[in-house]
């Protein structure tokens, strides 16, 4: 197992390098630059700005400079937020995004799996349709619509929860719900489908025929195999949450790094975009690794050497 992990981590490095190279050159392809303003910048000022940010050097040299900085943990200065370096901003925002994302995925897993299992056990009954119906909300309504509706109902009309900000546990409730809905839907369906499949297998039939109490049948025999597809889904699930967080953070005024990505792209804040991209890349690689490990722990057919 350890060797497997080492190998995976080793394989992640070329992946990261490709991500870095790709994003570096790609964002510079977009038209416009980081220094444009509606009040025109005098040419001397523009020249001075370019010098200050090393943008007057050939592209390859800039790239080398960036890699060197990365090796030292320096992501470069933010082009737009001049008082901060990208590392500062990411260090401040990432724990918050992480917190939000983790809560969302945990909620999605708990609620999604519960709904899915419930629906599978009462297949084609009213319970099944209701549970499936609830989970469908996440699939049918975009999260940037759900969020304002939630703030309207719970923040303004019922006045139970705050409308914006971050820091107090009551701030967490609405954004986490809005963010997790789409994933709840997908996880519920996955769980339901795989649970149904497992319930119809021979070994479950055998267990029941043997007279095992239903509870033991469920816990010992069906849960593990039913969970496998859900675990495999974790990687894309987290990617989905990252995507959703971009909008949710903006709507609720949460100081995470999701907003930096879109704004960075629109502002042509090159270093910011690259910093966030690399961060997300690392995160996704890591999550895939963890998901595969957990999968390996759960599935006796898989042996990692």
């Amino acid at each position, binding site marked *: 197992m350890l060797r497997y992990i080492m190998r995976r981590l080793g394989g992640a490095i070329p992946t990261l390098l490709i991500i870095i190279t790709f994003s570096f050159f790609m964002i510079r392809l977009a038209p416009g630059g980081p220094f444009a303003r509606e009040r025109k910048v*005098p040419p*001397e000022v523009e020249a001075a700005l370019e010098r*200050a940010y090393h943008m007057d050097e050939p592209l390859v040299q800039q790239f080398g400079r960036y890699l060197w900085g990365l090796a030292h943990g320096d992501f470069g200065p933010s082009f737009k937020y001049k008082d901060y370096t990208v590392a500062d901003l990411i260090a401040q925002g990432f724990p918050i995004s992480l*917190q939000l994302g983790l809560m969302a995925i945990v909620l999605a897993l708990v609620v999604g799996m519960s709904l899915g299992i419930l629906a599978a056990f009462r297949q084609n009954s009213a319970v099944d349709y209701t549970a499936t119906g609830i989970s469908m909300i996440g699939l049918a309504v975009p999260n940037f619509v759900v969020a304002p509706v939630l703030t309207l109902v719970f923040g303004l009309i019922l006045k139970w929860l705050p409308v914006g900000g*971050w820091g107090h546990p009551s701030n967490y409730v609405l954004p986490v719900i809005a963010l997790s809905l789409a994933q709840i839907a997908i996880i519920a369906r996955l769980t339901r489908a795989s649970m149904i499949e497992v319930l119809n297998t021979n070994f479950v039939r055998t267990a029941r025929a043997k007279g095992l109490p239903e509870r033991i049948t469920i816990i010992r025999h069906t849960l*593990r195999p039913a969970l496998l597809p859900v675990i495999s889904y974790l990687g894309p699930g987290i990617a989905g949450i990252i995507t959703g967080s971009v909008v949710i953070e903006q709507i609720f005024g949460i100081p995470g790094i999701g907003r930096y990505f879109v704004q960075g792209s629109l502002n042509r804040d090159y270093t910011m975009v690259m910093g966030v991209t690399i961060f997300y890349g690392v995160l996704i690689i890591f999550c895939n690794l963890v998901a595969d490990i*957990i999968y390996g722990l759960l599935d006796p057919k898989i042996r990692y050497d």
Partner: protein
Amino acid sequence: MKRLIAAVVVVAVVVVGFILYQNSNKPAEQAATAPATTNETTTAPAATTEQPAATAPAATTTQTAAATPAAGEKVFRRGNGAEPETLDPAKSTGVIESNIQYELFEGLTSYAPNGELVPGAAEKWEVSDDGLTYTFHLRANGKWSNGEPVTAADFVYAMQRLVNPETASDYAPIADFIVGAEKLRKGEEKDFSKLGAVAVDDKTLKITLVKPTPFFPAVLRHSSFLPVRKADIEKFKQDWTKPGNLVGNGAFTLKEWVPQSQITMVKNPNFYDAANVKLDKLIYYPTEDLAEEFKRYRAGELDATYEVPSEQLKTIMETMKDEYEGKAYLGTYYYVINLTREPLGKQKDLRKALSLAVDREALADQVMQGNYLPGYSWVPPGIPGYTTQTLSFKDTPQADRVAEAKKILEAAGYGPNNPLKLDILYNTHEGHKKVAIAVQNMWKQVGIEATITNQEWQVYLDTRDNKQYDVARAAWIADYADPLTFLDLFLSDAGVRNDAGYNNPEYDKLVKGSSSAATPEERMKMLSDAEKIFLDDEPLIPLMYYKTKHMISKKLKGWEYNNLDFHLARYMSVE
């Protein structure tokens, strides 16, 4: 089975571990609260009744938007648009940054609540007879927040830094009024002592101008001229604007800056007028989503907003009218025409037809729901001493205007079989979209086929700079309360700033000549005449004037309307 348990345990440990780590590890807030405790215990302000014990819960409540301030503490919570790009006065360009900077620093001159020019760090000044030399006398009791006195040398340093090309300041050209500034910022002159700003002694500053500029004290209010301390900048370099490092001479000091979340400022006990400052704390929030900002205001989480979404105006007028401030602001919203392109470039009549066909009242009142005022001139009204010009057809009813527009188009050979085609460019924004759609429709009524294109900000700026458009949405906000800030945009040698490509020697003569006018009245008349020439040439289509748009909580006192929309918290209080 054991492996299942193992897997669940692994996941649970990872998840719980992260959440615990996050909650225990808040170094920024903890470090910021340490100085806060000492600040608050050393202040002896007349108005507040807070106890030191109250600062402990205050530490956590700074993070929360929803929590109410600690008992007795007066806090002003303001929506401030977007995250500031920088707090360095020499490098910032926007109103968002200025709002914060005006709390932390004070320039030679400053703003009264109603916008009038009042002495700031300088308590009085004299002008020489030829109007070229100003002598400023700084206050004896002016101090920085660390207790050191404010000196003239600080202002000299700030101005030299502003024009230094290495600082790469976008707004350096605003200093061009001062002798030597233009050469220095272009790098043609390297000796900064040649700048016409000299510290005669610690409290006396002498500034020499290129030509007489009667509104110069008003120019000095601009955030680019705020003083900064050489010692701090040299010591902290890039980090000098961070809380704990930033030393300012304003009514408040910077306590905490959580990017994308909030900026917290507390009262500066060393401010010379601290006795009259009634607020203990300011919290400024970046509020980009206007609809959400409005919701937060309604929930009681904000005392003042940055803007007001136009869709909500009808509801506001019906239910919250006395909390809404919406008055004239020195800004013009217009469509600039690319004068280097055919056929609009050569045919003034066609441009006039375009202008005639627009129903500005409908735009301002219905499309924008009253969030703007109809605009018929380039320089907006409200500058004292200046006679606003208007387009010649302002008093003609809209139906007649449309008829005249149709006639002009026909005479030029356009008709249903040969419609005039053009493209309207605007940058991605809800409001601009609405205006473009409405104008497109209005032009359709007179037979013009317009397409609308939107580009995101950077690309849009590029397109305008390169003159690759037919008609583009544009806006200009005054830097200071004088018509020149609008009129000098279209001087033929204004370079890239004159993106219409306007060139009229008569106009140039009047605008440039105004600085040699004998009296202020004559000067204003020359500028007014210049604007008349400009409007008659129809180089652009003024559409609307901006309004200040804020929701102001009834609990907030001391916020007054002024047409530059700068409101300093030192005059305010909350109940």
